[in-house]
């Protein structure tokens, strides 16, 4: 805790001064400076991109794993308990500890960050897929069987489409959560907007822009997923025509 | 001695059934173009069951909920025992009015005893008094005492409904409001609960407002029936018999149903019909005497009865070839009909046994006459409700099974 700047003084990542702390300008007072933001916006582009990649890759991998587990658990009910238990533990471990516990195994960098972030999405997506599938009305399932659908056809043609809103809702929650957790990914050496915040956390302009970008990213991704959900589930908006 | 009299006197005055009077009650929801209830006036005598019936959306539930001010009145007034319901704060008023709804609304986190004790607890009754009342009520609604510590989730639908009724009765209210109380229950249990409730009511004599969409239930339960049409307009307010005999207009006639003549059978008892006189013979009577009996009676066969007048069987031509009437006879006198049983049930029994006649007995089992399909069809024909051949109607009614 020797240096006056940056929280991550002891971290092996270089703490960069974002601006010169001299003079009587807005920047020197660590204020909120629109001018400074306008001129320095480009320095947030790379961290933002890193953040997007971390989030999208983690959610995509997490979805693949959780979805497969959920389908398995849908066939073999006894799996649901253990899977929920294990993913629940992963979900509970604070991301910060997770990054450091993983580091001896996966090293510093994006791999560690992604492994940790993936593990957080598992519980959310798994739970939503299984509740979505369980929420399909028994009579609908019955009708499907009565029409001669095989178990596999029933799953892909009836159960999964009907579970879609719930599934996508899970992905949405997982995505916004991951955007938030990825702000700590710099502890694992994976950069992202968190690194930018950490570079100068007392400079209001910096915190507002980097934090704001995090929120904006979460909101944009959420809207994209919401639009996707609406596009693929037209029947949920059907209104009886008189 | 003197004190006890006063006490019971007080208790009686507090809990005696009250008359309920609706005076030009109107309800219009804010922003609505039409009244939900329009100028509804009716009086329910103390101790009567008034059934509000009508198609869905006619405002029957709204009308009921105006009484305990779950919904506020737009204009008009409702008087309970001569006093306006607006005199009391809503919560106070509602503690004095029993309330039963279709979904029952038991508190899932409380035991049956705690559920029943809801109002006594609100009224700060002493623990012992509440406990005693809970036991009494469980017994009253035919639930075993050990149900007291169960939770609603452990009860069947029928049992929960009994708890609902017990809960509404807890503070012995002078008026009960019941909104389709048996609506969500299977037909067999519903029938049993209806009968039990009528038995209960014959003891308690509460004033009851009972909402249903089922005209058969209305006819069965109601002392008086108020038929409502859309917009909460009173179409007819009458006793079940009047309603069936003389529907006020096409709407009521339609609602009551084309088979209303048959429904009347549910309202009447065997004793209400002018029975046929039976040609009674006893063992040892001469067959000539028996033939003479048949000639002067309404029936082609003599009915053999025991010494004390109980029905034994019908005598056929073969039984009359000898000089004297002897036992046994070929044809049993079945079904034996109770003169107090409902005419509809008596008809059902005749049809079930595939027979034309049934001897009718009084409480001691003595034959008092004979009921026949012919008599019933005459009865149906005599009412002004008959448009078609009564025999056809009799065979195609599922209501009789």
């Amino acid at each position, binding site marked *: 805790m020797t240096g006056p700047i940056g929280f991550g003084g002891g971290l092996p990542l270089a703490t960069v001064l974002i601006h010169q702390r001299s003079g009587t300008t807005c920047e020197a007072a660590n204020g909120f400076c629109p001018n400074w933001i306008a001129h320095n916006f480009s320095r947030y582009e790379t961290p933002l991109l890193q953040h997007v990649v971390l989030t999208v890759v983690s959610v995509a991998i997490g979805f693949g794993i959780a979805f497969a587990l959920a389908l398995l658990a849908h066939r073999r009910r006894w799996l649901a308990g253990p899977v929920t238990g294990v993913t629940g533990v992963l979900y509970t471990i604070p991301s910060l500890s997770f990054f450091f516990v993983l580091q001896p195994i996966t*090293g510093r960098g994006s791999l560690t960050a992604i492994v940790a972030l993936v593990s957080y999405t598992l519980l959310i997506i798994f739970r939503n897929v299984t509740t979505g599938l369980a929420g399909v009305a028994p009579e609908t399932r019955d009708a499907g069987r009565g029409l001669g659908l095989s178990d596999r056809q029933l799953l892909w043609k009836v159960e999964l489409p009907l579970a879609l809103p719930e599934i996508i809702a899970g992905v949405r929650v997982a995505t916004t*959560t991951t955007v938030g957790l990825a702000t700590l990914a710099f502890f694992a050496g994976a950069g992202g907007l968190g690194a930018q915040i950490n570079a100068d956390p007392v400079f209001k302009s910096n915190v507002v822009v980097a934090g704001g970008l995090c929120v904006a990213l979460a909101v944009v991704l959420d809207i994209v997923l919401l639009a996707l959900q609406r596009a693929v589930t037209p029947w949920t908006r059907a209104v009886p025509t008189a | 001695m003197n004190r006890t009299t006063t006490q019971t006197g007080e208790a009686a005055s507090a809990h005696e059934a009250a008359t309920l009077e609706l005076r030009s009650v109107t309800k219009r929801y804010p922003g609505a173009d039409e009244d939900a209830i329009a100028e509804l006036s009716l009086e329910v005598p103390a101790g009567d069951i008034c059934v509000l019936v009508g198609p869905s959306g006619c405002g029957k539930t709204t009308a009921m909920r105006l009484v305990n001010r779950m919904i506020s009145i737009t204009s008009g007034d409702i008087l309970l025992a001569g006093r306006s319901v607006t005199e009391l704060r809503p919560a106070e008023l509602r503690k004095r009015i029993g309330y039963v709804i279709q979904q029952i609304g038991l508190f899932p986190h409380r035991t049956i005893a705690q559920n029943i004790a809801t109002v006594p607890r609100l009224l700060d009754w002493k623990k012992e008094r509440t406990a005693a009342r809970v036991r009494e009520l469980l017994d009253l609604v035919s639930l075993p005492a050990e149900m007291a510590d169960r939770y609603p989730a452990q009860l069947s639908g029928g049992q929960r409904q009994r708890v609902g009724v017990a809960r509404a009765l807890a503070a012995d209210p002078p008026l009960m409001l019941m909104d389709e109380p048996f609506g969500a229950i299977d037909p067999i249990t519903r029938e049993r609960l209806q009968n039990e409730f009528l038995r209960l009511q014959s003891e308690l004599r509460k004033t009851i407002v009972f909402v249903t969409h089922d005209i058969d239930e209305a006819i069965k339960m109601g002392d008086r029936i108020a038929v409502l049409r859309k917009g909460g307009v009173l179409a007819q307010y009458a006793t079940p018999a009047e309603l069936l005999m003389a529907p006020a207009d096409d709407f009521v006639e339609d609602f009551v149903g084309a088979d209303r003549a048959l429904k009347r059978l549910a309202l009447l008892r065997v004793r209400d019909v002018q029975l046929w006189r039976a040609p009674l013979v006893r063992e040892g009577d001469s067959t000539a005497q028996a033939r003479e009996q048949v000639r002067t009676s309404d029936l082609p066969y003599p009915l053999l009865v025991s010494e004390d007048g109980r029905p034994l069987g019908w005598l056929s031509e073969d039984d009359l070839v000898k000089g004297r009437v002897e036992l046994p006879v070929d044809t049993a006198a079945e079904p034996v009909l109770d003169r107090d049983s409902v005419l509809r049930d008596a008809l059902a029994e005749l049809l079930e046994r595939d027979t034309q006649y049934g001897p009718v007995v009084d409480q001691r089992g003595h034959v008092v006459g004979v009921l026949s399909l012919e008599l019933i069809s005459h009865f149906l024909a005599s009412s002004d409700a008959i448009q078609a051949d009564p025999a056809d109607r009799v065979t195609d009614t599922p209501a009789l099974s």
Partner: protein
Amino acid sequence: MDTGGANGMIGPLALLSQFNDAINFIFHSRDSVTGGVRIGGSHLLPMLARHVELSAVSLGVACALAIPLGLWLGHLGRGQLVAVSVSNVGRAVPSFALLAFFVAYLGTGFTNASFALILLAIPPILTNTYVGVRQVDREIVDAARGQGMTGWEIVRSAELPIALPLIFGGVRTSAVNVVATATIGPLIGVVTLGDPIINSSVYGSAGQLGASIMVAVLALLTEVIFAALQRAVTPKGLRLAAGASTSRRRFWTPKRRAYSTS
């Protein structure tokens, strides 16, 4: 895995020794990397205490604010948009960004740290309380009203007890969140268990890993304790009702098999 040495990956033996060293750090004190100061072992206890203190205070205040507000809004059926979207917004604002925002605008210190954590803890509790009250069957509330219960009596004897499991679900989520986020407390001037993680130049990698393990255990403990609490506050009648519905669900499992074999 051995080939990953370049970016910090190490072999299994070295891996074991790293974890061994970390565990050792947790249970035995040693000199700091920079020298002169004793770290680890019993010296971790004040940090643990501070961590728990910060978490408990924040969670307590958040409960005191969010539960009454949620009950009130839920009972009246108002503010659905606020009560529900607050948790979406809460999720979208990263806790790290929120803390940084507090540092930038208000400075460091225990009070500011707990402000940030309170803000973090409120949304799940508020939303769950609101939803918990709203999901009480309308018939139950109607029956309660019809029997002459006042608004407060309905909240106290019906809505609150029936909503309790959900409310505690929210408290549980927030508790785990708060414990996790309190780890970055040293960045905002509160020396929690996150200190060895963040100041590895003083504590060394063993300290970093050891504290990480402690934080993980603390979070899991919090989860377990609150799960037990949640179970304990669930009225028996509700557990029975829930049991009835799961057993009904189980009921059609064999039926399904019968269908698929036919």
